[in-house]
């Protein structure tokens, strides 16, 4: 039996190549898919590097198992490189990944890096790029359909922050905003200001700072100056380690009034951030539908794998890896452009739905070339024309004893 299925898989792959990308030289007998992980292993976002790497590896593992169960000959491997939080470094890391044969790239973490990688290599090579960056700016860049995001853009995160503050502080209160002067913080703070004022709230001050400053005390003083009811902090761990310390030094700071955006979401507060700067603080980060079997299965797999604790956006990275895998199976090719063209037909509304619980079935269905609908750990994917998701589920969490505790989920649109 297994022999027969294998042959069928092989034939499906051959015909797919013949139709979709005639002349491509990949072996029909055995596809060797390389998923590139453009990790934030060092630099300002180095906290998210290790969980993202583990999520990518987990995706490859799950995909390989499903392929084996389905009798498909595709093999998934992971290649990694460090984006360092820097556009230039990210581009050179992306080139390394491409040299190592990556057919799609998960990451990087920031918008400037994503744009640099997009313009520098991936758009030209038709390689799908799956940034964790959530800036709305990525919606409007010319990308030739190569950018897909499994994380929602910041106009939705802004609404999640509004809801979180309303739930825990109240409606119509005063808020001070502080952000690191980068596209992420700039765009999110603007969206938040608009959204918060629309619900009748006030903004006492908006403070932004350059990450390379040598002191943050004056800025911290301004944040706490008018004793606002809440502070919205849109920062990265590297700078919040300094800014948070400066906030505590003002003597007027109350960490329980803090609402952090997703870049400051981690399972455990890093040790370089003073505990007083985040203890009791709230935050939002893209969430996954927690009640589902898929979510439980993912958590179980995560724990069994050992290593770093689960964190925000691991499910999104994981799903991106699975989508890339399914698209390659459906295309019967590891050619980047062929994968790109199949992303929408593995997330098609109305097609048979599959999850990681029955991924081998999904592989069999995808091999036939017919559309399927992969329902991810982070939810259903309905990519808009610009590659953004329509998912809008956010976790509201709180730091207690240095650990992240989920408080509730909010649904925004």
């Amino acid at each position, binding site marked *: 039996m297994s022999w027969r299925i294998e042959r069928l898989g092989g034939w499906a792959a051959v015909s797919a190549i013949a139709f979709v990308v005639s002349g491509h030289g990949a072996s029909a007998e055995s596809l060797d898919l390389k998923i590139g992980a453009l990790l934030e292993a*060092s*630099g300002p976002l*180095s906290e998210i590097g290790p969980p993202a790497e583990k999520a990518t590896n987990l995706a490859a593992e799950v995909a390989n198992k499903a392929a084996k169960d389905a009798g498909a000959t595709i093999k998934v491997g992971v290649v990694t490189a460090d984006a*360092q939080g820097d556009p230039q470094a990210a581009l050179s890391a992306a080139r390394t990944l491409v040299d190592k044969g990556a057919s799609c790239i998960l990451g990087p973490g920031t918008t400037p890096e994503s744009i640099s990688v997009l313009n520098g290599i991936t758009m030209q090579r038709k390689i799908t790029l799956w940034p964790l960056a959530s800036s709305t700016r990525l919606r409007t860049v010319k990308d030739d359909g190569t950018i897909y995001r499994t994380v929602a853009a910041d106009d939705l995160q802004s609404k999640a922050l509004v809801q979180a503050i309303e739930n825990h502080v109240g409606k119509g209160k005063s808020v001070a905003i502080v952000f690191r*002067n980068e596209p992420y913080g700039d765009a999110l703070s603007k969206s938040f200001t608009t959204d918060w004022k629309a619900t009748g709230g006030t903004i006492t001050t*908006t*403070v*932004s*700072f*350059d990450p*390379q*400053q*040598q*002191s943050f*005390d*004056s*800025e911290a*003083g*301004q944040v706490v*100056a008018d004793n606002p009811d809440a502070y919205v902090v849109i920062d990265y*761990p*590297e700078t919040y*380690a*300094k800014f948070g*310390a*400066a906030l*505590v*030094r*003002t*003597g007027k700071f109350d960490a329980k009034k803090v609402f952090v955006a997703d870049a400051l979401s981690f399972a455990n507060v*890093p*040790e*370089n*951030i*003073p505990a*007083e*700067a985040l203890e009791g603080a709230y935050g939002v980060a893209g969430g996954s539908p927690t009640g589902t079997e898929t979510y439980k299965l993912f958590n179980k797999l995560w724990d069994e794998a050992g290593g770093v604790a689960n964190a925000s956006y691991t499910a999104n990275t994981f799903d991106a890896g699975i989508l890339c895998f399914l698209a390659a199976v459906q295309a019967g090719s590891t050619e980047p452009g062929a994968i790109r063209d199949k992303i929408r037909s593995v997330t098609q509304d109305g097609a048979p739905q599959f999850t990681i619980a029955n991924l081998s079935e999904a592989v069999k269905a995808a091999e036939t070339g017919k559309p399927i609908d992969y329902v991810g750990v982070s939810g259903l994917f309905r990519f808009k024309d610009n590659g953004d998701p329509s998912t809008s589920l956010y976790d509201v969490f709180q730091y207690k004893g240095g650990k992240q505790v989920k408080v509730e989920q909010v649904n925004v649109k």
Partner: protein
Amino acid sequence: MSATPTVRASAAEDDASAVRSRLASPSRLTVLVAVMAVVFCLLAALFGLVPTAQATINGFVAGSYTGLGAIGLTLVLGILKLVNFAHGDLLVAGAYFTILFAWLGLPLPLAMLGAMVATAALALVTEKIVWQPLRQAKAGTLQLFLSAIGLGLVIRFSVQFFAGSQVRTLGANVVDSIALGPLRLGTLQAVALLVGLAAMLLVGLALRFTGIGKEMRAFADNRALAEVSGIDTQHVINMTWIVSGFLAGLAGILYATAIGSFNPNFGLTLLLSLFAATVLGGIGNAYGALVGGLVIGLSQEWSTLMFNARWKPAVGFALLILMLLFMPQGIFGRKKRGS
């Protein structure tokens, strides 16, 4: 004020300008202090005394980091005429030597002291393997300039290689603060401020009164003349590197401790401010480094009262350019003579 009447040589005009610049130097400082005082009063009137005073304290803290970091730079620039782009990375070396020695089991204060000595040794090593050979080969300005940038990269990436590029902390308590009425000053920042000021004062005094200090100044002024006076110039050069490295180590440690969180790139991000303080204060002058650092620190922090803090670096450097238009030699700088 005219030149000595017995001489009608061509040097007369030159002499008069020398006299002027001598006289102008203390008054430049006085004018500067007066301007700062007026600005303070204006800001206090416009934005309230407490916020202005708090910004002033913050400015002193930021200025002391910059000033202390700049002393070693200004000494090397003034005495050896070398634009040491690797200086920021010597600060980084100081912070990471501390981590290394602490990891080897030394208590933190000892680790810090050891780190300063190690940074001084590193600076001396760079003299022996890079600068001395380059000087003997009569390398030009551009070659020295590029070598300094290259050396900085080598130091930075060596640190990254051995220590990794992730964010580090020296584990000091960065959240404690001292309340001065309604004003606040971080405890560690106060320590950094005091140690910084003390170190600058000590270096200034040592340059003025010790034998080696005078020899350094003589060397800076005219190398050939220093040599015919029997000054061992290589000894002066070695001492300059040792002092510069030691102070860079100290500055790196204080900055890393007080800011609380750093990675191997912090020297590079500080370097521009260090150069600004050096140039503004007057090249080669330890007090100049202090005053230059304080002017930059205060103007940046004061600017946060008026503008969003995101413009802080731009405001600081715009002011630097403006001040250099009025005093191109810097606050303590002396007009260069053609001798």
